[in-house]
């Protein structure tokens, strides 16, 4: 019996914590594609992802959920497009204190909705923010087309909080979704 592969992708700017989030969700079943970061002007982190970070979650004996982390740099747009075309769900990670946060988040959400199989998109505020800041970001975001999506808050390093995020994606799915 054929079991289609199920995939979700993590999107967001460089340094937001996509690799860390995959490690939190998948533990030892995570493979990282980080190399030394040569673009220290864009971000001070020591390493950055150039391929797709990848992790697996064994849902049961037969099915596996694959989690991809897309590189954040614009020049890897084609990787993001390819990963989105295979996924049923997406987590858009954001630091709402960054000046471009709203614009980038809207762009990524709209890219998600343009993908053929995406059924659930959530925004994850991955840096500490007050309840008022989160609410303000949520209201502003939802004023844009296709951006009425859940806006959650979690620390990518915290497995429990990342499980909560995945739980919200699960709650959005039709019961018998069959991703290709």
């Amino acid at each position: 019996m054929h079991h289609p592969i199920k995939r979700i992708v993590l999107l967001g700017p460089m340094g937001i914590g996509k690799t860390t989030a995959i490690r939190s969700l998948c533990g030892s079943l995570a493979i990282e594609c980080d190399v030394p970061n040569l673009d220290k002007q864009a971000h001070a982190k020591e390493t950055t992802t150039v391929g797709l970070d990848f992790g697996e979650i064994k849902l049961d004996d037969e099915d596996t959920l694959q989690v991809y982390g897309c590189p954040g740099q614009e020049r890897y747009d084609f990787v993001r497009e390819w990963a989105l075309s295979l996924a049923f769900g997406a987590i858009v990670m954001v630091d709402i204190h960054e000046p471009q946060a709203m614009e980038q988040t809207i762009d990524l959400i709209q890219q998600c909705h343009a993908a053929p199989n995406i059924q659930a998109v959530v925004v994850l505020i991955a840096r500490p923010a007050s309840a008022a800041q989160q609410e303000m970001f949520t209201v502003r975001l939802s004023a844009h087309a296709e951006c009425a999506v859940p806006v959650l808050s979690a620390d990518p390093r915290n497995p429990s909080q990342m499980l909560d995020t995945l739980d919200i994606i699960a709650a959005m799915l039709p019961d018998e979704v069959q991703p290709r």
Partner: protein
Amino acid sequence: MSELILHAAHLSEAHQLRFSYLFEVAAKHWRDKQPSQTAKTATELWVIDAHSAPDAIQNRSNSSFVLLIATDDQAQAARAQWPDQIDAQLPPDYSVGRLTQLLEHISVQAHGKRLRETLKTRRQHSMTLSHDVQVKNADAAFLKATDLNQPTLVVAEPAPEPVLEAPATTATAPAAALGNLPAPGTRFRIKRWTQLTGSMAGQAHRQLLAAMISGDRGLDELAERTQLERGEILRVLQVLRGKGVLVETAAPAAAEPVALATLAPPATHTAEPGPAAAKLGLFRQLSRWIHQNRASDPH
């Protein structure tokens, strides 16, 4: 232009600074948007919190509006204690955008109270009334606490959606005003995400919102997906209705509303796949895996 007479001295100290700052910004934002017109009768607005509610509600005039700053739980308790006395509510962490929307909502309501028939006639002819707010008599305590030298929120806040905070139902919705039970078969959806507060800030409540933002869901489905009691789901629906984000779609032939006391727990047969669906759907697979991992997670 209508004037706004503000009574806000009843607010506790914890709420004063935020309100004074955000109100000035919201009122300026509102004023700047509206053209000046012939003066109308002033609107009185009483801003209260859970602590000051008893005194303020007793002292206010009948024609004034009451804005309660409180958590959803506190607001529900206040509304139960003083039915029809609280015109609007904001959570303690409200934004300037929501306050601006609320001023607009109150302004519209004020016109509605005074000019109900005229407004009705104008609406029938697709005409709109212009509203404006001027602070006629802000309490001195708030003016002292106001710091208009902080520019950030004015820039950051979006243009408010005019009807966002107005309790709204769609043309297809059943009779589902506050306090009423939905007709069997009614399906629910939310127009946008919203952050719930107090006892509604938990993961199960976020699941409930997520289920409703991704499609129209019936009560059974919501109960199954969230493991919340139906009474609690109805309570959340009522809050969402009050926030103006809930869209309710009636079943083709709505029957009598089901009494809350007779609502059965989530039907177990809907939660288990039948023989023909032995393979679990992704939602159930993910939910089961998350549940197992949460149970083994030491955090």
